[in-house]
């Protein structure tokens, strides 16, 4: 089992290849979309590369959940309700929702996709192998 830092370095190299960014830009806190300029189709490319580089299987929607805002019960006035935040936590247990939960605007969900989130996800998958 590689260390957290070794996983980070490999994730960093993965994102450099997938997004054409400099490795200096791929800090742990960097958001994939806001800081690294990832678009929706890049998520598919990232999934391909993570699977290949780490030898893991990533089921559809597990790393980047689809239909993340399912119904009116979980969203009110552009923000996730308490139930919505709990559902998001359940679907993304590898993401740190601490800051997000304080102001759970739907538009900020994309900020949860950080480099650190990918490292945590890969660590979880490798530990389960």
């Amino acid at each position, binding site marked *: 089992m590689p260390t957290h830092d070794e996983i980070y370095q490999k994730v960093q190299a993965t994102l450099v290849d997938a997004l054409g960014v400099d490795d200096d830009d791929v800090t742990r806190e960097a958001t994939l979309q806001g800081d690294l300029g990832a678009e929706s189709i890049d998520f598919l490319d990232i999934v*391909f590369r993570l699977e290949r580089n780490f030898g893991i299987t990533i089921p559809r929607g597990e790393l980047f959940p689809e239909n993340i805002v399912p119904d009116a019960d979980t969203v009110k006035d552009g923000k996730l309700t308490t139930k919505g935040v709990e559902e998001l936590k359940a679907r993304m247990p590898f993401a740190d929702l601490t800051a997000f939960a304080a102001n759970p605007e739907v538009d900020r969900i994309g900020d949860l996709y950080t480099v650190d989130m990918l490292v945590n996800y890969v660590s979880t998958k490798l530990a389960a192998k």
Partner: protein
Amino acid sequence: MRWIWIDKFLEFRSREFARAVKNLTLAEEHLHDHFPGYPVMPASLMIEGLAQTGGILVGEASGFTEKVVLAKIPKAEFFGIATVGDQLIYEVTLLDLRAEGAIVEGKVLLRGELLAEVEIVFAFLDKSRAQQLFGDKNFVFTPQMLGILDMARASGVAKSSSQPS
């Protein structure tokens, strides 16, 4: 002009690999404009040839039930040029195939030398959304496009997953 940028398959192994040939001739209009007096095959059209080779390889894997679209080119490197009278060989290897799409590695060869290396990500259009937009029509795999694979099958070049290798 027909938007078909490969002439025929030389080899087709389902879910694995495809090799196609593209001959460049002065009968092609675009070569007279790119460039006048110096006809050079545009790099973008070589990528299109690889995408068609790879797109058919990816589409065949699901029996052409998916609408396979070129989504991203993470890498494209060219090491030379090709001109009229040249014969390009497109080789595409399927690296990964999943429910949402596929990734392939493509090479362009000219006289046995590597002319270009390209990575292509294909996405499958969401079926319900594609049905709303396009109905039953599969605008990706037209009869003309699939005819190239039919010719390869007829000549024994193509091996589908259901056929013994």
